[in-house]
């Protein structure tokens, strides 16, 4: 994508009041300077187009549990990387490395997900321009 188109997309994203349930570039919603790691128990799975979501209960250092939403790529993009819908289920513990939403809500972009079987999967939307962006079909990065 050329610079102008990129700026246009980013500006449009910033103009719009961004919440969840939308299809967009990484920068429209997330801050690439705010990495985060969540370890939590899955409470809800949305294996959906144009983005998938999974919801985690995350316990902080004081033992307080709070709910987080993790946004990932669409089902086709994830299954092409070997992450199929049956690989996670309610109650499983996930480790998710991602980036915080710009609006400060409990929403992250799930860039790297450690599945219950220990396998690492890239969770991003192909071509979204975010950190470690991997277009569809690209080799997964080494861990």
């Amino acid at each position, binding site marked *: 994508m050329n610079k102008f188109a990129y700026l246009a997309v980013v500006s*449009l994203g910033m103009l719009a009041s961004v919440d969840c*349930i939308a299809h967009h570039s990484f920068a429209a919603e997330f801050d690439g300077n705010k990495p985060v790691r969540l370890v939590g128990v899955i409470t809800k799975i949305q294996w*959906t*187009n144009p983005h998938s979501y999974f919801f985690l209960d995350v316990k902080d250092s004081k033992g307080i549990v709070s709910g987080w939403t993790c946004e990932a790529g669409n089902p*086709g993009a994830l*299954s092409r990387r070997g992450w199929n819908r049956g690989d996670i289920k309610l109650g499983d513990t996930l480790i998710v490395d991602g980036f915080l939403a710009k609006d400060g809500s409990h929403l992250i972009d799930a860039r790297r997900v450690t599945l219950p079987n220990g396998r690492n999967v890239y969770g991003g939307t192909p071509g979204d321009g975010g950190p470690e962006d991997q277009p569809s079909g690209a080799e997964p990065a080494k861990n």
Partner: protein
Amino acid sequence: MLSWLLAACQWLAATPLGTGIRESDNLFSVIETIHVLDIAGTAGVIAIVDLRLLGMLFSQSEVPEVLSPLVKVAWFGFALMAASGLLLFGAEAADLYANPAFRWKMLAIIALGLNQWIFHTGGPRVLAAVLSLGLWLTVIVLGRAIAYVS
């Protein structure tokens, strides 16, 4: 507000077809691609019609000569656009119900229909052509904006 409409949208999204498309590996993107390419083609054909009505394109040819083949293509394109759009809507209906860009887009499509109807009952053709160009542009921009607002 309009709780029956919300209920209908939620019902549609929960049908096997809506759920199947929403959770599909490839079907959603295939339908989305058809929808977007079809809008590009159909709005392009309609723009040629509008520009002829404004005398800015093919003005050496008679209006019916330019319009009659293009209008057939435009109706075919519109039918495919509506069908693919309905399937995409079904997949996300429960969320789209509240999406302001989607709501405005539907109003713009209704306005396009009214404009078409008024033109066919003998309304001024220059105004119809200008409104058509502006409204199609609006529909395309709002369609893309659906993904960025909620």
